[in-house]
């Protein structure tokens, strides 16, 4: 009886997850394109070697790692500040929390299109107001140089996802017991000492949850960067997903795309597991 109840879920899991994974793994050892499966030939580890030796792919992986570290790092800090500010229950904070949801609710592709217009150096609002306020003398060509393009892609991600982090941390702040903080205050700890030594350790499971969810999403970033910079200028913002898309879904080189996907998955698994070990120490969430 038990097995029969579980069976539909297992079948769906096999069909939707396990089978494609096996196909992906098998494909990575063959050289073929989607339209010429009859020319499929076993090449062993050649696809993996090709991917590892390709400097543009190595560059793409580094760009992706940098993007994830910058974006998630800033979101965590900004989210924590927002959460601390909005955690006390009041009407103003309730309204503030609701407003926070707005960028989070915008479709990423739409937000990228809007940002592209806002950052246009000829008629975008950002340069216009920066010039009106006397902060800059002439327009900044945001998407034309590597440093400013990075500000744009990280800025967009931070704008969109900081509220998500803030909401998780705010829920944590509102849920943790107040007694340890009161005890610290009685012992003479100031606000910063209380936050750093008492509140923050209690928040650790929520920080781990927020980082985990954001890491997974940040590594999957594709549409926003594709629209905002297309990986440019040059290859300065070319995330590995843009490369994977081109190899797999524009040129349909299935073997090479499968090998790249698997290598990236392995790399991600190592990074995420190590990170969680660090963050997850002494947290019930991850035990």
């Amino acid at each position: 009886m038990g097995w029969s109840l579980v069976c539909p879920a297992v079948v769906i899991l096999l069909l939707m997850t396990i089978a494609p994974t096996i196909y992906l793994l098998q494909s990575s050892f063959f050289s073929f394109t989607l339209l010429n499966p009859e020319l499929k030939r076993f090449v062993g580890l050649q696809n993996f070697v090709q991917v590892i030796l390709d400097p543009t792919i190595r560059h793409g992986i580094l760009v992706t790692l940098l993007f994830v570290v910058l974006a998630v790092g800033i979101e965590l800090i900004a989210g924590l500040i927002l959460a601390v500010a909005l955690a006390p229950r009041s009407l103003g904070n309730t309204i503030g929390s609701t407003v926070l949801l707005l960028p989070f609710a915008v479709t990423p592709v739409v937000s990228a299109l809007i940002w592209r217009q806002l950052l246009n150096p000829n008629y975008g609002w950002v340069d216009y107001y920066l010039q009106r306020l006397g902060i800059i003398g002439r327009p900044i060509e945001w998407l034309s140089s590597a440093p400013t393009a990075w500000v744009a892609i990280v800025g967009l991600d931070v704008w969109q996802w900081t509220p998500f982090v803030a909401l998780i941390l705010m829920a944590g702040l509102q849920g943790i017991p107040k007694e340890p903080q009161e005890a610290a205050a009685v012992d003479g700890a100031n606000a910063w000492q209380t936050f750093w030594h008492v509140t923050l350790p209690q928040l650790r499971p929520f920080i781990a949850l927020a980082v985990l969810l954001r890491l997974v999403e940040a590594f999957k970033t594709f549409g926003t960067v594709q629209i905002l910079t297309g990986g440019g200028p040059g290859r300065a913002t070319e995330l590995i997903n843009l490369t994977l898309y081109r190899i797999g879904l524009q040129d349909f080189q299935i073997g090479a795309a499968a090998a790249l996907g698997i290598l990236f998955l392995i790399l991600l698994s190592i990074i995420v597991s190590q990170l969680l070990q660090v963050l997850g120490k002494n947290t019930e969430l991850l035990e």
Partner: protein
Amino acid sequence: MQRRDFLRLVACATGTAVFGGTLSSRGAKAAATKPQKLNLLYATAEADSEAVKLVLPDFASKLGIKLNLETFPYAALQQKVFAELASSSAFYDIMVVDTPWMPALTNKIEPLSSYLKNPQLNDITDPEIKDFIPAVFYDAAVFNPKKSHLHFPDSNAPVDVAEIEKQGFEIYGLPLQANVLTLAYRKDLFEDPQEQQAFQSKYGKPLSVPETWDDFVPVAEFFTRPDKRLYGTTLMAGSGDWAVDDFKTLVACWGADGHLITDDFKMSFASPEGVAALTFYSDLINKQKVTPPGVTSFSWDDVADTFNSGLTAMAMNYHDMKLNSGVKGEVAYAMVPKKVASGPHFGTWILSVNKFSKNKEWAYRAVAWLTGAEAQTKMLEKQLHPSRASVYKEAAANSSLQKDFANFYDVLGKSLAVGVGRARLSNYFDVSKVIAVAVNNAATGSQKPQAALDAALPQVKEMLKQAGYTVADN
């Protein structure tokens, strides 16, 4: 009637029914059964689906078949077309195919030469293939089934099915929407007496729309007035396929093969002409500074926005331009300037018959009708970029089109006749990206043109080798 006579009559009728049925079913085999519906997979905006929608009622009345049109945006369409063909799906009878996809699809698309030669299949529409602009037809529809990277040797020869077959090539569809780079300019500025006088006194020659790239530079410099928010021109220099389209146009103008990679895999993009062309391109942005801020992140969309908002006097694009309502001015068109040669980038959408369709003969008839002169002429109402010479003559005689689009169709037709397409590679997008990065790096000034192309060269060669092409190392 006696009983015997009645039995004879019944036997005779039965025999007629049986043998007649057999004969008629043989006849039906010879002429495929007419389907009630054909499914067409099409591009939403890039190939002007509105134009096709316009003729659907005519199609139904002429062919007696319903045409079910399904459209997708570019990226999703490419994936859909490839996935359908890879899975040998018979669902879509007709598919729209962009030129760079075809080298990978030739074994999945139905060759049409035999259909074009069969009078029984041309009973509804005469395909009149000699009416197609030869350069467009050969670039978009004619491929070598065994070596899909080869172009037809003479792209200006009148279209002839027998000659195409004789040369070992096949026809994989019929062209519909043909896009090519043209030069839009602000007619009001060029015809302003004050501007003409100022130009004459500054350069000692009359102000005119540039016909050569040498003439282009002073005109672009003349109109560049950043304090008045006006620039000479704009470009598609962002890191994408559009930058390659700009660059390949210049490479052709500078006298090298505008496909960027020749049919025998010589890297013309990295030739001395290629370096000179990229240097010219980079200088427009960094030395002469005749482009607006942000041009090194622009695509064709940004070029249109910039020109339409009155920020530039000239701009190259694939389609007509419309000044925003707040900009007082007039737009006209010219062919892209020349250097030692001419070769604006072009690319054409063709309608092809799915090899796995169960209605191939009727799908062919539909393709012939949709790409025919009558349908294309009607589609002009929705701004189709026709692929037939006769339709351009119709456009020239249409005062309404002249009023709405000035001389756009005249310039479009002339530009298509001298256009240069892309290299035919199964991994075109990978190769294009490498060249786009080189163009973008030169445009931003982060690399010298020579260094940018030198860096791209080994990457492109390696990619071609990985795709199975034979490429010389030197």
